[in-house]
């Protein structure tokens, strides 16, 4: 195979953002991802908040890239047809000392360049956030905070990068890196060997291992777990903004979050984890999150919780590590991208392009870059009249597969066309199985549609890749 100019390792929001940004240029670009689909790493399990940029250490990469990323994300979402909602956030104070800290946070935020910060009083809170505890006395209002669906953002970035020529390889976990001279990397994966001049490491939790393979082992990724709990969509309007407590030394605290699909979410915890693959949730985490959330919104109850998950923050110290490794020319680390990595992603992509340029790669714009993508259709999100027209045009929009979230056979088939290969992939793209019944009713139908579309027996269909097959075989005698 002809060598790539650039190979990106990792198909999370960082890898996908870099891929899409660089696809503007006349370059041969490849992306290798170890999982069965993109977005199955950290980027699928986070809070989905596009942070305004407060609460970052002055002078850090994080601080600068977060403020920039907040602006860039809006533009990218518009171009790619991803919903971005500017809901605003409130950092809530419950006593006078906390009120004092709000002023400090405001000053720091303004110095970082965060626009529109304002202290609001309890009367404002009563009027604009009626379910908030009446013990709240003031809040720092950051109007530019927003929400997106993190996995849909990754899917749409990847799809658009693909349209502009980037080659994606999934199930291609990097097992070894060798060098055949300066800027001649050989990347070994189960999908074959790839050659490249520049190598970008965006491997999330495993970025330290990739970096060590390339010969740079001066940092370690320490996973820090965050457990999050989703509430029933019936509680969608429990808050109007994202609600934050005052931050501690190590984390932003337990939040009450609005999500792009409507379900409110509470979390995340922040505990060091021993294992990069340990995504278990705990009774203790549940209790802690529930209590903290109730401190802000007393009416949240245990019975509102309909789903939960854990994500691991890939932390490598206090700041992001984004640099060309001069020791290994052509090798760029984009590591330790913990929060606010989702927000900073598009700014990180620009920074990486700049680093490449400074290190000898010429970036020539293509004559034609397909920057726009048509928004993915979701029946639950559109008015009835539009549904009527769609069903007329294509009958299978009227064939409902997932009853809880109202997902049609057409949407499922489209998701598969766009790359879904697993039941989780279908869920993240369409929301089928993400509702109250958790797939009790639609799993069999989804299995069949996926099996027919990708021409694989039902027994080989997985939840999220090899090892997670849904069934153990055919019934005896069948």
């Amino acid at each position: 195979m002809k060598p790539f100019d650039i190979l990106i390792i990792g198909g999370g929001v960082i890898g996908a953002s870099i891929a899409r940004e660089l696809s503007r240029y006349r370059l041969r670009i490849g992306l290798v991802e170890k999982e069965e689909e993109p977005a199955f790493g950290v980027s699928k399990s986070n809070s989905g908040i596009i942070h305004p940029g407060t609460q970052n250490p002055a002078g850090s990469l994080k601080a600068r890239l977060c403020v920039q990323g907040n602006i860039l994300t809006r533009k990218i979402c518009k171009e790619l047809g991803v919903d971005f909602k500017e809901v605003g956030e409130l950092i809530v104070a419950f006593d006078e000392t906390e009120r004092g800290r709000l002023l400090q946070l405001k000053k720091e935020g303004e110095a970082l360049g965060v626009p529109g910060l304002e202290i609001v009083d309890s009367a404002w809170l009563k009027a604009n956030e009626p379910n908030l505890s009446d013990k709240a006395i003031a809040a720092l209002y950051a109007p530019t905070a927003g929400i997106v669906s993190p996995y849909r953002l990754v899917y749409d970035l990847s799809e658009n990068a693909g349209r502009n020529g980037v080659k994606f390889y999934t199930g291609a976990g990097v097992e070894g890196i060798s060098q055949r001279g300066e800027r001649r990397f050989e990347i070994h994966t189960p999908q074959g060997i790839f050659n490249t001049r520049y190598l970008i490491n965006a491997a999330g939790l495993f970025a330290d291992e990739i970096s060590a393979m390339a010969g740079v082992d001066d940092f370690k990724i320490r996973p820090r777990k965050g457990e999050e709990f989703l509430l029933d969509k019936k509680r969608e309007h429990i808050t109007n903004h994202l609600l934050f407590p005052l931050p501690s030394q190590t984390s932003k605290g337990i939040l009450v979050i609005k999500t792009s699909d409507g379900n409110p979410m509470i979390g995340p915890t922040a505990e060091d984890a021993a294992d990069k693959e340990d995504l278990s949730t705990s009774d203790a985490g549940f209790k802690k999150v529930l209590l903290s959330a109730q401190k802000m919104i007393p009416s949240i109850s245990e019975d509102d919780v309909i789903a939960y998950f854990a994500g691991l923050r890939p932390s490598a110290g206090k700041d992001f590590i984004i640099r060309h490794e001069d020791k290994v020319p052509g090798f760029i680390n984009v590591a330790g991208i913990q929060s606010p990595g989702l927000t900073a992603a598009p700014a990180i992509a620009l920074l990486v392009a700049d680093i490449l340029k400074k290190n000898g790669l010429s970036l020539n714009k293509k004559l034609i870059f397909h920057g726009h993508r048509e928004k993915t259709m979701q029946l639950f999100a559109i008015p009835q009249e539009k549904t009527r027209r769609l069903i007329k045009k294509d009958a299978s929009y009227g064939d409902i597969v997932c009853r809880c979230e109202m997902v049609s056979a057409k949407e499922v088939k489209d998701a598969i066309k766009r790359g879904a290969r697993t039941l989780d992939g279908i869920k993240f793209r369409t929301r089928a199985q993400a509702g109250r019944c958790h797939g009790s009713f639609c799993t069999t139908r989804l299995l069949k549609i996926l099996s027919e579309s990708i021409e694989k027996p039902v027994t080989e269909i997985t939840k999220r890749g090899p090892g997670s097959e849904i069934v153990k075989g055919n019934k005896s005698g069948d």
Partner: protein
Amino acid sequence: MAAAIAAHESGVKDILLLERDQYLGGILNQCIHTGFGIEYFKEVLTGPEYAQRFIKEIKKIPDIEISLKSFVVDLTRDKTLTFIKPGILEKVKARVLIMATGCREKTREMIHIAGTRPSGVFSAGLAQKLINIEGLLPGKRVVIAGSGDIGLIMARRFMLEGAEVRAVIEIEKKTRGLLRNVVQCIEDFEIPMYFNHRISKINGKDRVESVTAVKVDDDLNDIPGTDVRFDCDTVLISVGLIPENELIEMAGVQIDKKTNSPVSHELNKTSIPGLFVCGNSFKVYDIVDSVSLDSEIAGRLAAEYLRKKI
């Protein structure tokens, strides 16, 4: 079907029956075990046989129009409903409406079982559908959470398919299923049952590898140090049923938050006049015979409501 037939027998002439599935009979179709109809037909039938009796009956009545694959997406207070089916979005206004939407199973998430989210965690009903309708074997070493009837019946079903059922784990002191199911499905197969225990954790990265159970006291609090681990590749969740009433809730019917049933002082009636709810969507019954009888009452009530209005 029972409600439609009863309404027709009571004189209603223009009935539309909407079903979202591609066949009539609902969940009975996957209940291939026997025990249905003892009260209603005084015969022992399987689920599909029981359903078939009603299907045969209803197909003889031209006044009942049946529309399959028809999914109701919207319902308003004035009993206007919108449904979609392949190729069609249709709005109809009914003078009287009977909801017979059944129930769904409680999920692992509703009882907050901690741990990982691998494949191999099924509601008992989904496992039943996979085996009985699709001819697939969901797993080979099974632990069942809860002793609801579907769980008990599935324990036997898995044993008959050559799978091993390692344990049935019930948080209460006694089973929540029918006694006959405990005897025929659990005791006859010598499946260990653990009362006063709850599954506290599901373990495994891609596929279920084990579950952890813990003993609980009378207030259902964990007793420290009583953890037991069961190796398994499958967990069935059978911890109860919830009436499906999201549509009438949308229309503004008062719903009891704890049971998800309509708040009602009289059988089958709701806070909206002329909107009736029957069967398991009114309240969860143990056996289908009671569901049919309840639904017939709803059918007659609907007919009476129409007569009074004219």
